[in-house]
């Protein structure tokens, strides 16, 4: 039986121990504010040893996971919430595990017919055992330059680098592998950078207006993502109508191919010839003041608080 929004109780999980803790705390606070405005009784919790006891004692109707990085996106926490029979907004643990691992997600969406830059994902041990120089030479030979180097898991562009000279590649590998044991390398694709959010408010997954990203520095790195003024956002993206339709279709198809639920955000590049190159998908999109999901929601004429409340309501009655 459906609850009225004014009767909903919710917990927003934010913080955590991932590299994106600060981003998560910003997201969590903004989600809480939006939900309060929508009339939802909400409290924010930082997941720790008290979490399960707290959820058991004061059980919410549903949880909104505003955790980014491994804490919120690798599926582990969602498995625990499932064990505790606590409903939550967003994809289940199995889908998260696939989306969280970028090489896995690329393989799945590629098999579903989407275009994604060629890639190779290798752990440190492979470089150590086969010799880094020879492996890197082969990668440059195959993909050319510039190359995108990023951790196979993770978000907010942490550890991600654009490499334009092969001489810079070894140092970039050291830097990237400090964020995780496996590195993803792919050709750097020129084009219009877009972020497309997908929400399912009950009628199936729908793409919201795409956000076009134009970082002042040319690189959408951590600073450009979270410092107001360092990136210009166009919502909807300034794309021809065919490309607009194509990115929306690609985002929904990625959402479905990965078995995602409720909400996701796909990052992609639209090349000069109109091809949509899938880069990665996020199962716990940022909700900060500079995040793209809230921009897309507002561009669609919706209120963030109402959208999140609806997602909570759906989760509570699932």
């Amino acid at each position, binding site marked *: 039986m459906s609850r009225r929004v004014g009767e909903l109780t919710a917990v927003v999980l934010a913080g955590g*121990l991932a590299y994106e803790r600060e981003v998560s705390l910003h997201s969590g606070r903004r989600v809480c504010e939006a939900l309060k405005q929508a009339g939802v009784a909400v409290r924010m919790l930082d997941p720790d040893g008290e979490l399960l006891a707290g959820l058991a004692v004061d059980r919410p109707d549903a949880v909104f996971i505003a955790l980014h990085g491994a804490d919120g996106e690798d599926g582990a926490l969602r498995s625990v919430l499932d064990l505790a029979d606590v409903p939550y907004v967003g994809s289940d643990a199995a889908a998260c595990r696939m989306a969280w691992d970028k090489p896995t997600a690329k393989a799945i969406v590629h098999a579903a017919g989407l275009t994604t830059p060629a890639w190779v994902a290798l752990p440190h041990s492979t*470089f*150590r055992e086969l010799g880094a120089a020879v492996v890197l030479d082969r990668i440059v030979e195959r993909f050319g330059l510039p190359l995108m180097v990023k951790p196979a898991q993770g978000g907010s562009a942490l550890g991600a680098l654009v490499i334009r000279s092969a001489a810079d590649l*070894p*140092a970039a590998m*050291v830097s990237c592998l*400090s964020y995780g044991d496996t590195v993803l390398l792919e050709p750097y694709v020129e084009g219009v950078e877009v972020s497309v959010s997908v929400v399912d408010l009950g009628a199936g997954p729908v793409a919201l207006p795409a956000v076009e990203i134009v970082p002042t520095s040319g690189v959408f790195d951590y600073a450009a993502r979270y410092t107001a*003024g360092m990136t210009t956002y166009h919502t909807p993206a300034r794309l021809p109508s065919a490309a607009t339709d194509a990115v929306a279709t690609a985002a929904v198809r990625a959402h479905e191919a990965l078995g995602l639920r409720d909400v996701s955000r796909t990052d992609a590049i639209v090349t000069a010839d109109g091809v949509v190159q899938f880069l990665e998908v996020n199962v716990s999109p940022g909700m900060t003041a500079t995040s793209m999901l809230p921009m897309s929601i507002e561009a669609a004429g919706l209120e963030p608080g109402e959208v999140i409340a609806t997602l909570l309501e759906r989760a509570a009655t699932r």
Partner: protein
Amino acid sequence: MTGTTLDPYSGRYAQRTDGLAVSEIRALFSVANRPEVVSLAGGMPYTAALPLDAVGSMLGELVAHNGATVLQYCAGQGDERLRELICDVMALEGITGASSDDVVITVGSQQALDLVSRIFLDPGDIVLAEGPSYVGALGTFAAAEATVLHVVLDEHGLVPAALEETLAGLAAEGRQAKFLYTVPNFHNPAGVTLASERRAEIVALCERYDLLIIEDNPYGLLGFDGQTLPTLKSLAPDRVVYLGSFSKTFASGVRVGWAFAPPAIRDKLVLLSESQVLCPPMLSQLAVAEYLSTQPWREQIKTFRELYRERRDAMLDALDALMPPGCTWTKPEGGFYVWLTLPEGLDAKVMQPRGIAERVAYVPGIGFYADGAGQREMRLSYCYPTPERIREGVRRLAGVVEQELELRATFLGSSPSSDRLRWPRGSAPGPELA
């Protein structure tokens, strides 16, 4: 169709804000406050060692009996009684015969640093500072758009020959630094203390080159053997602005520090401070005055010394036992910090994500330089964690260093790092870490 930068004030900010941006480094620090992480990053004094019940009663009585004054404005120079008491504290620090008339109370010594920077520095002016130097000072110099030239220090503090070389080089170019900023005792971040014989040499050099000295001495009473060396101020009263603080000897949360300056400088400090804050907070000032008047503060400092000595020992023992070959570190005789240098080729900033993943936090060395140096260095703080946590933190750190050595060997052999990145503005540690 126009886009948005999400900042309607873009284009209106002063040029000096260029480069102020959110950074990965600062994001990683946000994890350091979680209890799962052993933070060897923060420079927070261990205020739990204070007699909190007694201090609580003291504060209650202060407001109950003297509330109308405690909750009022005061003179911009600060409360007269506290300025007299500060002269007693400075006597303990090695400055005798100070006049309370030349003491200006500030909101922590950080405000004093900002005042000094605003008084003396125009954009492009040169400041000399130890390399590494206190990150909070570098922040005020950057805000004043000054250029910092670092002067090397070793285990005995600032190296006089290096200072002379820098001064002579500037003179040869027809340039002059505005002042030398130095932390002679139990240096933040390096942990070293300026040797007694070097103090006279440095003062003599500054006399010869007519250079003002800003002497920052927040840790002076925290020598583990109770030792005090002659302050530069005592050696050259008219050439030194002396900065003091109650953050380490009483409580960092009261935000009370002071500047003891020659009269001409003092007048400017007072006038500028009034334009900044009107007056230092009276509640905090009278809390400190009451603490100094009614509580056994000298005994409390001994308690702090013993506590920090035990933690210093825990850190040095753990470093000796656990760190991989090639790491070196300073051996502080007081204060809060050990300065660690990694093996050739490692980069403390690059390996910071691995540190967070292994639940140990430190401050990468580049934060303590204005010129991008310090890549192999890091500051380890022992003031806040218990000895057990310190040992665990060092154990984790040793593992991180070993993994980085392996990674470096895979991709870069043993060659040193060639990339030299500046510490982005806005990415310096926050106050809880500075």
